[in-house]
């Protein structure tokens, strides 16, 4: 279709014709910048042109408003070669004037005046004329638009010099053309809009309107504005769709009747055909069919999309185009022969795929996304046609079906003549093609016809399309869709009786469906698989599939029981003629499909000791519709090698609740600023995930090591529903174990689980260590005490001559109670005669700790060390004894006589004491026993004190300076009161010091008989020296009970005994209460003047008790009630 812009010429027509070819060929040579109004983007366009003689005929239409933008001349040119001003004034000016007036009459101002100069060179050399004709023309006609007048050197005459001016001319023509287009397009758009407004008027026809708007599109396309051209087509498309849709709701348009015509021809789109505008002619003639119209519209859109470099969009638009066209055909009640529309869809699909294919091979990758569904559609349509024409595997076309094929082939139409351009480029594309299998391309129409012609061709094409659909879907990672195509392909292979090929697709689909728990669909796929395996005679796979189907809870129970029977039957068959390698995994089936592990519980209550039985309760839900008999049930466990994992899990197990804490932030004024809840996860970087977020894994189950497993070996029936089994095994190896995998053997089939789905604490198998402990109650020193040695053998294996060596610390002795020998030893051997593992034996012992020779009542610490046969290390056991008796000794004074008082205090145990003895080895010291001799034995028990008394006499010559310390030894014998036996002696030594009386204090009250409350008495103190001593300064203090006595004046004083034997002091005291009052106590202290400089004051030091004798101690005074009280 020749739609080059039209330019007209007038004036010197002969001259113009001589230039026309130059101009026409020069215009499209290069692009020109097109500045467009309304801020539309600047575009470089390549123009084309053709010239016509000026005539008013097209202008007439323009004035009426029925013009066509294509036929409307873009530019009118007046041409003259007049050089002479006079000639111009007389002739040319009038001609131009008339021409311009005509143009103005039609309201056109796209004109140009061209003055061709055929200059006489000699003339111009001599004088330059004052005014030229060009100036004149400009002055007369184009005072405002001087650029519309241009002069050019005649290129025919001045070949060299004219180049520049000729180029100027071409540029000017282009410029003016584009200026004209700017105006015309706007004007034409107005016209279109006006026409559109009339669309509901009677007599308006969409066809006419279509042609009107399409012209704009064509112009825009010509000018290289493909996107804008496409917009025009898209508008038309939408408008048409709307008309058709509205026609359903009763809108009646006469023009729609054109499209209602029935047709038997349903050719597909073809972008390669030579005569692209054939349909346009039909539109003009009003004989176009709906399918042709839609095809034409889509083809135009495709071409423009391709030009815009938006090839991917073609793919995107195809399916909506096909589906909406089908809807429209339905709405318009256009009957198509059966299969014709499928043919049409198929051809369209292949055509578009062809375009996309070409585009993709260069750059467009995004195309794939849209191509995949198109491949799928093509495949589906081909299948429909195959079914219709008896081309499916296993069918042969009947004569009726053959007739259909002929009809359909006719309906598709013949392959349209292709453009040569495509034919040329095709081999080149073929070279680039990645798939070496592709033969030189046949057209889509031809492909379809071939496929419909023969079963083999059909099958080949169908398989090819399926593979392409699958691979394209996979390429754009639409795996589910790919698998769905796989389902169709699998079914086709089944029909081809090639179930082994189908199985691949079915298993893929099954895996995909199962991984996302689409159980209903998965069970359907299982049925397909089962039939495949049966056809293949794959007994093992068939058995497994049957069992899985029988466990599909979604299926009807009839189906399930049928397959259950099949399962049992084929199990039996398997037994007869199949041996399965132990190493192969073929007989493994997924346990999760058949059973659900509800619980695994360790029944051992205590620690599991090596060689104990591990007992595990397994709760299992069986999906089988009936009872099955399992030979073995095994639950493997595995050494928990990863210690870290264990600890993490342990901490998780402790708190199944997330550690969520409340955070409150306060402002300074104690108002709440922010309240939030935070979760402190164990691993801060790891986000919290719900366990259900994990996708079911797709990798096949691997059989782990079942050497360590609890099991039922004897065979067991598994009922439908919940079953509880007890599995057991001997704990062989020590360690921390974790349950791993469950395996159920039913005949030859092994149902193997994934990891145990429940959270299970690991369990531990330990060895029990042998141990020896001493058992005793409070131990008392001095008496034989029973102690038990408890030996528990644990898992240690004892040699026949095993023994325990028991060693005691110092002062501790031990013996075996039932030993013949009665003596206590500090080390004994305890024989372990015929000691078995796990035996526990108690050995009775007696221990005796010596009483310490000191008067301490704190515990006596001993220890016992055991050397046991199971260990090289000694076991140390500390023992604490309480002494049975404590002894203390006090020195008493009576004047100068001295007495030793021994106190025995019973702490524990009931004892009898005999033979108390006090000895002193110092010369000149004698001890006089003052104890009564009558009771031989004295009983002593807890908290009872027994006292003995001796007088200590020191020869007067032996002064204290000679014997500052007298060592006395106390000894006694004791025996157990309840079981008198051996008397054990115990001894205790004491040191007696400061035993000489140095001072004597005497005190008396005067008057001694008439002491009254409230009346002052005088207290006379007499301090006399008994023995010579170096202490001269003494301090006395009267310490009176403040409730009884009040000391008037000083209660203390310092006296000097230097050179004085005796000192008397008198103090005033006041009795405060009546009755027998003890005399105020007097304390005498050494008054040591300080020797150091730091302490300036002298300080009193107390005397030891043996050096002072208070002769009036404890004397009481009878105080009468005071006289005042009587008054």
């Amino acid at each position, binding site marked *: 279709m020749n739609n080059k812009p039209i330019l007209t010429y007038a004036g010197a027509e002969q001259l113009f014709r001589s230039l026309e070819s130059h101009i026409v060929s020069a215009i499209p040579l290069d692009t020109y910048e097109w500045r467009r109004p309304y801020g539309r983007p600047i575009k470089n366009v390549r123009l084309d042109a053709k010239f016509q003689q000026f005539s008013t005929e097209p202008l007439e239409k323009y004035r009426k408003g029925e013009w066509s933008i294509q036929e409307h001349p873009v530019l009118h040119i007046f041409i003259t070669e007049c050089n002479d001003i006079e000639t111009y004034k007389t002739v040319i000016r009038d001609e131009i004037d008339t021409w311009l007036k005509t143009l103005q009459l039609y309201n056109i101002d796209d004109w140009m005046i061209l003055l061709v100069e055929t200059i006489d060179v000699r003339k111009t050399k001599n004088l330059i004329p004052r005014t030229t004709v060009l100036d004149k023309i400009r002055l007369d006609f184009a005072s405002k638009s001087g650029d519309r007048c241009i002069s050019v050197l005649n290129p025919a005459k001045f070949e060299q010099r004219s180049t520049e001016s000729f180029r100027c001319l071409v540029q000017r023509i282009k410029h003016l053309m584009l200026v004209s287009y700017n105006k015309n397009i706007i004007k034409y758009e107005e016209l279109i809009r006006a026409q559109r407004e009339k669309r509901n008027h009677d007599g308006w026809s969409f066809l006419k309107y279509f042609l009107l708007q399409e012209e704009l599109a064509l112009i825009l396309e010509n000018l290289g504005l493909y996107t804008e051209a496409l917009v025009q087509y898209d508008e038309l498309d939408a408008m048409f769709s709307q008309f058709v*849709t509205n026609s359903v709701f009763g809108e009646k348009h006469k023009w729609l009747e054109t499209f209602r015509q029935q047709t038997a021809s349903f050719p597909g789109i073809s972008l390669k055909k030579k005569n692209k505008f054939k349909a346009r002619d039909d539109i003009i003639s009003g004989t176009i069919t709906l399918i042709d119209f839609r095809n034409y519209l889509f083809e135009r859109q495709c071409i423009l999309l391709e030009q815009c470099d938006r090839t991917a969009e073609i793919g995107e638009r195809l*399916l*909506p185009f*096909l589906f909406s066209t089908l809807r429209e055909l339905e*709405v318009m009640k256009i009957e198509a022969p059966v299969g014709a529309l499928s043919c049409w869809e198929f051809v369209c699909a292949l055509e578009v795929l062809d375009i996309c294919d070409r585009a993709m091979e260069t750059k467009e990758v995004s195309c794939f996304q849209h191509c995949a569904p198109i491949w799928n559609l093509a495949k589906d349509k081909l299948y429909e046609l195959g079914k219709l024409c008896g081309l499916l595997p296993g069918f042969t076309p009947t004569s009726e079906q053959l007739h259909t094929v002929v009809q359909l082939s006719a309906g598709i139409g013949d392959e349209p003549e292709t453009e040569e351009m495509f034919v040329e480029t095709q081999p080149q594309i073929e070279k680039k093609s990645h798939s070496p299998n592709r033969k030189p391309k046949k057209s889509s129409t031809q492909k379809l016809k071939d496929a419909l012609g023969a079963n083999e061709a059909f099958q080949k094409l169908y398989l090819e399309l399926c593979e392409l659909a699958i691979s394209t*879907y996979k390429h754009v990672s*639409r795996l589910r869709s790919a698998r769905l195509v796989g389902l169709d392909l699998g079914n086709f292979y089944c029909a081809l009786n090639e179930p082994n090929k189908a199985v691949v697709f079915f298993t893929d689909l099954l895996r995909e469906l199962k991984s*996302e728990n*689409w159980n209903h*669909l998965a069970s359907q796929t299982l049925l397909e698989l089962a039939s495949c395996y049966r056809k293949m005679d794959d007994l093992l796979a068939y058995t497994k599939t049957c069992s899985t189907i029988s466990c599909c809870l979604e299926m009807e129970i009839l189906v399930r029981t049928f397959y259950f029977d099949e399962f049992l039957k084929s199990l039996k068959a398997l037994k007869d003629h199949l041996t399965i390698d132990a190493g192969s995994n073929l007989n493994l089936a997924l346990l999760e499909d058949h059973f659900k592990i509800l619980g695994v519980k360790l029944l051992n209550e205590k620690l599991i000791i090596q060689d104990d039985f591990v007992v595990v309760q397994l709760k299992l839900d069986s999906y089988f519709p009936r009872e099955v008999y399992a030979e073995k049930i095994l639950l493997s466990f595995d050494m928990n090698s990863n210690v870290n994992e264990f600890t993490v899990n342990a901490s998780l197990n402790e708190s199944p609740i997330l550690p969520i804490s409340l955070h409150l932030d306060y402002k300074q004024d104690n108002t709440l600023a922010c309240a939030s809840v935070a979760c402190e996860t164990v691993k801060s970087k790891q986000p919290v995930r719900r366990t259900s977020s994990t996708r079911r894994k797709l990798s096949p189950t691997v059989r782990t090591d079942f050497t360590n497993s609890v099991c039922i070996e004897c065979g067991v029936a598994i009922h439908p529903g919940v079953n509880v089994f007890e599995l057991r095994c001997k704990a062989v190896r020590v360690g921390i174990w974790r349950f791993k995998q469950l395996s159920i053997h039913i005949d030859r089939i092994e149902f193997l689980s994934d990891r145990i789905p429940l959270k299970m604490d690991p369990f531990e198998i330990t060895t029990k260590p042998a141990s020896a402990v001493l058992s005793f109650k409070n131990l008392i020193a001095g008496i034989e005490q029973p102690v038990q040695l408890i030996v528990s053998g644990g898992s240690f294996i004892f040699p026949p001559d095993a023994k325990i060596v028991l060693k005691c610390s110092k002062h501790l002795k031990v013996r075996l109670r039932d030993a013949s020998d009665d003596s206590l030893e500090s080390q004994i051997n305890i024989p372990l005669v015929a000691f078995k593992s796990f035996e526990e034996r108690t050995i009775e012992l007696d221990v005796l700790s010596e009483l310490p020779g000191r008067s301490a009542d704190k515990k006596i610490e001993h220890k016992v060390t055991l050397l046991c046969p199971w260990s090289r290390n000694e076991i140390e056991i500390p023992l604490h004894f309480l002494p049975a008796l404590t002894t203390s000794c006090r020195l008493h004074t009576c004047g100068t006589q001295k007495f030793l008082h021994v106190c025995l205090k019973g702490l524990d145990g009931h004892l009898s004491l005999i033979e108390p003895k006090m000895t002193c080895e110092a010369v000149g010291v004698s001890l006089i026993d003052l104890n009564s001799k009558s009771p031989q034995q004295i009983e002593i028990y807890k908290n009872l004190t027994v006292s003995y008394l001796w007088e200590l006499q020191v020869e007067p010559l032996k002064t204290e300076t000679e014997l500052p310390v007298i060592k006395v030894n106390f000894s006694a014998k004791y025996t157990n009161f309840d079981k008198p036996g051996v008397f054990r002696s115990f001894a205790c030594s004491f040191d007696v010091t400061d035993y000489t009386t140095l001072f004597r204090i005497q005190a008396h009250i005067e008057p001694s008989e008439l002491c009254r409350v409230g009346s002052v008495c005088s207290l006379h103190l007499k301090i006399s020296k008994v023995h010579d001593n170096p202490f001269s300064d003494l301090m006395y203090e009267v310490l009176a009970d403040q409730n009884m006595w009040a000391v008037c004046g000083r209660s203390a004083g310092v006296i000097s005994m230097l050179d004085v034997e005796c000192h008397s002091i008198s103090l005033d005291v006041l009795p405060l209460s009546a009755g027998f009052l003890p005399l105020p106590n007097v304390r005498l202290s050494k008054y040591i003047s300080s020797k150091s400089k730091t302490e300036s004051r002298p300080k009193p030091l107390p005397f030891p008790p043996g050096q002072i004798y208070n002769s009036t101690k404890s004397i009481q005074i009878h105080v009468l009630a005071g006289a005042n009280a009587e008054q």
Partner: protein
Amino acid sequence: MAVCIAIIGKDNSPQYIATSDLDKELELQYRVHAALDVVEEKCEPGTKTTPESRELYLGLLYSTETHKIYGYVTNTKIKFIIVMDSSNTALRENEVRSMFRNLHILYTDAVCNPFYIPGEPLNSKKFDKSVRGIMTGNI
């Protein structure tokens, strides 16, 4: 109006599927399953989604000769799929949008049931009744 309404869990396992035509149930389920491909494609974080990624309505996922499949994804990655009969040319996109909104409300109500375990199939009869109401257009 709608021939199938499906609710798919976040791990892509079906939680609820209602079909108007029992004969086509299998085919429709396959359609819904395949639609997940497109849902995943549209929800991919890398893709140039609209700046308003909070839009839950995914629009038309794909269409076949007989059906149009629309999708909707909640913030917790629960997918709603509605399969419409494409012979209804008067169907407006906004109607589908409001169907999804109503479905979302129903779903929220259903999972608020404290006895419902998230991730399990939805068996509530009341929910089923209401969803079938949406399907037939009597909301």
